[in-house]
């Protein structure tokens, strides 16, 4: 936390310096190029390269500089928007797709995309352009999407498998969802078909639940997930449960409830259980705490069979994007570390809301190592907008470009940011 404070003190100075440097370097600035209003570390520049794309969720960038963005728009033929990156600005190349959704990944010559119910893929040509935008292949179908946590995030490994998160359609598996004081259902039935990650084949059409394997369970909801190439393992970010103080005011006050539980980073192996809904992770006590719906009081521990997170972050900040940085453009310390897009909280009221930034988590030998730091801030627009939760922009998806630049999507106004480093 100390580091974070120092950083936030320095950020305005850094930003001003960065802006001056940026302007001095530009000889012929394209019209759409704009300093993004973000604060980034010294030496980095941030540009808004596209705007007004609607609900821009996740993003993938090709070696040729094409940018694929999955939108949650209900507009016809704008489910996927393709841009071309011209450096400090991007132009719209084409759009297609009539389904809204979240995930966007390129793997082995295919563009993979998800709706709230299905996973599709489009074959790419040698230039990584979609060959037949009107006829994607349906890979997985019939996934549960009910009230909460409908987005289907996924990641692919190097052995032909796809890992799809199926979010729990509940906050904490209460008998009456989100009802004050309602207790948890014993042997939470949601876990049969949701609240975990399912493994499917990446190339087999029309798979349903019966074709897949429940790879990991006890995960409330996940939007940001990525395959770590260094240790060949699935990493993901869980959105922790809401409303401890609201549901059980006898055990938590609003201040505690704003920070708890942790938003957790997990490194998964087959068969792992992260413990939802029976426990949550308390990043202050560094313990797995029994959920109040199952007899917890904020002190009793639980989840003896549940795994521990590999890193934990303050509550409710909604980690929606996870990316392992493998480029060479950024300074050495970023290599193989993780960038996390925190979409921002809504569940901290009456305490101020938090998040709306991109965090860097240092890694060493494939595991988090050292304190996380805020890498890019200012998406909200002002401290007041951040505190009220009425952020101008909310970071959601992350991608790495062929030159090592970092791309960030915003699903409020549909902006795309490009963050680059120059020595």
């Amino acid at each position, binding site marked *: 936390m100390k580091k974070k404070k120092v950083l936030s003190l320095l950020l305005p100075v850094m930003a001003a310096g960065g802006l001056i440097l940026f302007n001095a370097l530009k000889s012929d600035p394209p019209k759409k190029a704009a300093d993004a209003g973000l604060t980034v570390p010294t030496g980095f520049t941030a540009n808004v390269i596209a705007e007004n794309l609607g609900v821009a969720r996740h993003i993938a960038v090709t070696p040729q500089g094409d940018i694929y963005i999955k939108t949650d728009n209900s507009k016809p033929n704008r489910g996927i928007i393709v841009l071309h990156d011209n450096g400090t600005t991007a132009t719209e190349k084409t759009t297609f797709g009539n389904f809204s959704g979240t995930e966007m990944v390129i793997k082995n010559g295919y563009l993979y995309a998800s709706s709230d119910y299905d996973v599709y893929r489009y074959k790419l040509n040698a230039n990584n352009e979609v060959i037949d935008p009107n006829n994607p292949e349906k890979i997985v179908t019939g996934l549960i999407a009910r009230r909460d946590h409908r987005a289907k995030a996924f990641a692919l490994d190097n052995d032909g498998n796809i890992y799809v998160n199926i979010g729990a359609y509940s906050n904490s598996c209460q008998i009456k969802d989100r009802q004050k004081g309602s207790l948890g259902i014993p042997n939470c039935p949601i876990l049969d078909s949701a609240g975990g990650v399912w493994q499917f084949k990446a190339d087999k059409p029309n798979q349903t639940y019966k074709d897949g394997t429940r790879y990991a369970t006890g995960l409330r909801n996940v939007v940001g997930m990525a395959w770590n190439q260094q240790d060949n393992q699935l990493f993901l970010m869980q959105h922790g449960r809401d409303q401890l103080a609201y549901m059980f005011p006898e055990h938590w006050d609003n201040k505690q409830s704003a920070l708890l539980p942790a938003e957790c980073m997990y490194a998964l192996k087959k068969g792992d259980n992260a413990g939802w809904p029976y426990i949550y992770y308390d990043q202050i006590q560094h313990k797995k705490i029994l959920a109040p719906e199952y007899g917890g009081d904020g002190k009793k521990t639980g989840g003896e069979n549940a795994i521990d997170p590999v890193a934990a972050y303050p509550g409710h900040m909604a980690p929606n994007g996870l990316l392992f940085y493998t480029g060479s453009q950024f300074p050495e310390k970023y290599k193989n570390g993780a960038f996390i897009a925190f979409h921002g909280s*809504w569940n901290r009221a009456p305490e101020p809301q938090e998040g709306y930034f991109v965090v860097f988590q240092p890694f060493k030998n494939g595991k988090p190592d050292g304190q996380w730091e805020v890498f890019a801030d200012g998406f909200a627009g002002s401290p007041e907008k951040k505190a009220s939760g009425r952020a101008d922009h909310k970071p959601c998806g992350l991608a790495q470009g062929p030159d090592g630049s970092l791309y960030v999507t915003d699903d409020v106004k549909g902006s795309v940011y490009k963050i680059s480093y120059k020595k």
Partner: protein
Amino acid sequence: MILKYSKTAALVLLLAAVTTTLQAQVKKTTLSKKKVAVTKVSSGSASLKASMARGKVVFNNICATCHQADGLGVPRMNPPLAKTTYVLGDKTKLIGIVLNGFNEDVEINGDRYSNIMPAHDYLKDQQIADVLTFVRNNFGNKASAVTLTEVKKVRATKKS
């Protein structure tokens, strides 16, 4: 707080003596300064203003956690309470949502909201009347008050 309320009540009673209109078309900003239109909520002791004040307390304790302090909700999850027919339209339906909860996808002004709203039948009828009156006359909304009688009527339907 009690002192504040009794003061308000006294003022309201005074105004009620000269104001017979039962209209609830009150501008939020002029509420305290200008002529207050009064609505008989129950026993005649409660004014619109008092009902709004009590409703604000209920709103902050119960509703704001999801719908947020500014009543504008959370994109994709919790619906806004400003300028929607769900709030400004049929009062019977609105009271029903509070009593029974809401478990449907809802589209408001082109945006979809999916989180569940639990039943709030544990609230007292007066609290429901107050909070709905508050919601219908805040966040840029302007609509008639919700009365205790109206809530009782919907509650009776629920039980039968």
